[in-house]
């Protein structure tokens, strides 16, 4: 069952074409990894899945992206889209407010006002992000006082709080130490039971460790897409092989 | 529903952004509409270069005030610029940390003291001092210049200091590496690099001096004649307006607005050269 289908997607920044005819089906309840050297378009693709690219001036899109068969660049309300497709950023970006308010920001945005409900959501999201035990006694403390790894898991909890269907992760561990990285990876594996996850990563071991499907990008084109195991053991394309064996990038 | 609110607020923000444009347009319209007819009725040449300002006799020449403004501003720059720039150099490159903090807040306090307080200080301290030291009545070009020099100090200091701080450390180190002393490095490598920023500070200070009203009025004597020497009284464009606006009518009133038009043009020229300087600095 495919959660997201990308069809013949072209994306331009002004006159520069950043993505060329991408066609890709992202299956539900699996982790799909997007890999490739810097500037290959993997982050760009990720950001077009919840229309964060709208914020970039001069960005233009052709082709279609469907979420449950519904065109996300059609009539869909962009804010509701982003509620359904959550995002975790490269650098942890908690808001300068308390831990509680960080988590509650999303639900409040979408109209939940009742204190009991919010309390409930905050606890559940923090538990789901496996950080509840560490922060339950200091929910009212500023989020910026936490360590980098905790901040990133807080950001994941924050994304979960709006009950998304898809979770986009843009190199979520690139700013973290190995122990925090392991925790985030473990968390991602756990989360895929409930959510569809798309992760951009620079780290090929990470892709091997956690993803079910892998897509390899080069210069705005998708070179190869398939089962992670297969991509890393016997890639069909020569370029993929060169990349994963470390011959360039 | 939400979209409707977003669109409405965007229009509100846009309207707010346009307020400053509207303000400039309105100021121009109201000054020019009220001032220019009077100037043409009096005659542009006779208005600008007439040396007699005697509203009772329908003589409206503002040349003495133009000269007065130029004198007083030049005097203020002479008094304020050297001290201001050198103080900025001290703050940026010679100052111990503890003193720097004190000076920084002192300078901003100096900028915050109201002009009436400066004016009153000038009246009770500078005026008698100048009268006893240099003769005359004490209310003079010299008094106004010194007082204005003091008042424009914070402007010159803070702008210059910022631009000196912005010079890359490598310039200074380059000077030191050639065996120059700290002082020489600062004056011969850092200062030239901060030139245009310092100049912008001076021009900004000049704008302040041209536009200052109350303090000048309290110490300058305000005679509407071209001063013959430094201890003679002087009237500037700004004080001409504020002195007589209260009781003027008809052409007299419009001639005062015409004075404001001339003042406004002066300021526009200063502003224009300032923004040109700023653009030059960016490049």
């Amino acid at each position, binding site marked *: 069952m495919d959660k997201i289908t990308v069809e013949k997607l072209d994306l331009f920044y002004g006159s520069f074409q950043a993505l060329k005819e991408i066609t890709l089906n992202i299956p539900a309840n699996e982790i799909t990894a997007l890999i490739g050297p810097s500037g290959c378009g993997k982050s760009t693709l990720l950001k077009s899945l919840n229309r*964060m690219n709208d*914020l970039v001036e001069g960005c233009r899109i052709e082709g279609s992206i469907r979420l449950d068969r519904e065109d996300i660049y059609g009539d869909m309300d962009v*804010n*509701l889209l*982003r509620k359904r497709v*959550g*995002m975790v*950023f490269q650098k942890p*970006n*908690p*808001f*300068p407010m308390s831990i509680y308010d960080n988590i509650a*920001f999303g639900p409040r*945005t979408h109209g939940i006002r009742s204190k009991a409900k919010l309390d409930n959501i905050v606890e559940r999201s923090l538990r789901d992000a496996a950080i509840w035990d560490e922060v339950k006694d200091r929910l009212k403390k500023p989020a910026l006082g936490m360590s980098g790894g905790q901040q990133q898991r807080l950001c994941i909890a*924050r*994304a979960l709080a*709006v009950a998304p269907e898809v979770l986009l992760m843009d190199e979520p561990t690139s700013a973290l130490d190995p122990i925090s990285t392991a925790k985030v990876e473990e968390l991602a594996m756990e989360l895929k039971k409930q959510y569809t996850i798309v992760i951009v990563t620079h780290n090929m071991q990470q892709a091997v460790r956690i993803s079910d499907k892998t897509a390899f990008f080069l210069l705005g084109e998708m070179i190869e897409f398939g089962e992670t195991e297969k991509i890393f053991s016997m890639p069909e394309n020569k370029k993929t092989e060169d990349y994963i064996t470390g011959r360039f990038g | 529903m939400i979209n409707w609110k977003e669109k409405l607020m965007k229009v*509100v*923000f*846009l309207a*707010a*952004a346009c*307020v*400053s*444009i509207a*303000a400039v347009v309105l*100021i121009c319209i109201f*000054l020019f509409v*009220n001032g220019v007819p009077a100037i043409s009725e009096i005659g542009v040449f006779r208005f600008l270069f007439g040396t007699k300002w005697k509203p009772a006799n329908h003589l409206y020449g503002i040349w003495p005030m133009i000269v007065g403004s130029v004198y007083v501003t030049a005097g203020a720059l002479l008094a304020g610029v050297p*001290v201001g720039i*050198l*103080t900025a150099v001290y703050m940026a490159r*010679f100052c111990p940390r503890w003193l720097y903090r004190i*000076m920084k*807040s*002192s300078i*901003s*306090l100096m900028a*915050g003291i*109201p002009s*009436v*307080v400066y004016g*009153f200080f000038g009246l009770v*301290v500078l005026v008698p001092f100048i009268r006893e030291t240099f003769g005359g009545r004490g209310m003079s070009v010299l008094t106004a210049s010194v007082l204005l020099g003091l008042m424009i100090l914070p402007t010159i200091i803070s702008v210059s200091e910022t631009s000196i701080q912005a010079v890359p450390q490598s310039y200074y180190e380059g000077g030191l590496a050639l065996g120059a*002393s700290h*002082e*020489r490095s600062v004056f011969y490598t850092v200062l030239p690099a901060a030139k245009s920023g310092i100049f912008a500070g001076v021009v900004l200070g000049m704008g302040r001096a041209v*536009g*200052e*009203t*109350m303090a000048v009025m*309290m110490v300058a004597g305000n005679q509407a004649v071209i001063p013959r020497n430094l201890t003679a009284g002087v009237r500037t464009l700004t004080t001409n*307006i*504020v002195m007589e*606006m209260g009781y003027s009518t008809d052409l007299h009133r419009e001639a*005062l607005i015409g004075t*404001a038009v001339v*003042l406004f043009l002066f300021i526009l020229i*200063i502003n224009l050269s*300032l923004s040109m300087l700023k653009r030059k600095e960016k490049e």
Partner: protein
Amino acid sequence: MKSAIIQKWKGYKNDPKSFGLFSAVFLAMLITMTALLFVIVYILVKGVPHLTPDLFAAKYTSENVSLMPALINTLLMTALSLLFAVPVGIEAAIYLTEYAKHGNKLVVLVGRTAETLSGIPSIVYGLFGALFFVKYLGFGLSLLSGALTLSIMILPLIMRTTEEALRAVPDSYREGSFGLGAGKLRTVFRIVLPCAVPGILSGVTLGIGRIVGESAALLFTAGTVAEPAISIFDSARTLSVHMYSISGEGLYIEQTYATAVVLLIVVIAINALSDYIAKKFFK
């Protein structure tokens, strides 16, 4: 430590020019600081003994020369001016930073006009206010006319400081908020604006300083009535205007000193407040 100083002096012996340069900047610093200190101490010494209870009587008479009505009017004038200028200034800055596209012509135009506004002398604002608010719109010499005039005057200041504060908010906060499905308005008001509050506050305190110190722009817009304004259409003199009025009358020199003290204290308090805000939030 001691030997370093000795070494420094030895260096100066071989290099008199460096010593000259150092003396120059040190002297300039002394002049600046002494001048400021002299103004403040002189006013305080002369004024504090005259801070009598009479001066703070509820009603102004020509015997007590009470500054209380003027003090109340200053508060009213400040509040009313901020009420106009702060929302418009913040909204304009929001448009410029959050909505306008990069290289937008309107942004450039707004920037230029704001620059122009901040260079216009207060007497020109006063004249404009007298022509536009007092006469054309028929608000008369009133608190309202004065406050509207002042709000245009401080608008560029509020706009600029808010704009800087908004630009300093990291984009990652905006992305985070959009990523959760928050709209533009919610992102601006709940995430971006709260982060910018300290910067905005420091701009507002500077604006308050300008309002409190202003006199030339108020003479012909708010007038000089020495009673607390009951309605916004009442004429009302602020503390600065009050001080100017009584300083001209020779009879009230002592009271003028005392009024100057009160003005100075207000200004020093405002400066301390803005220093405090700066220290607390920008470490």
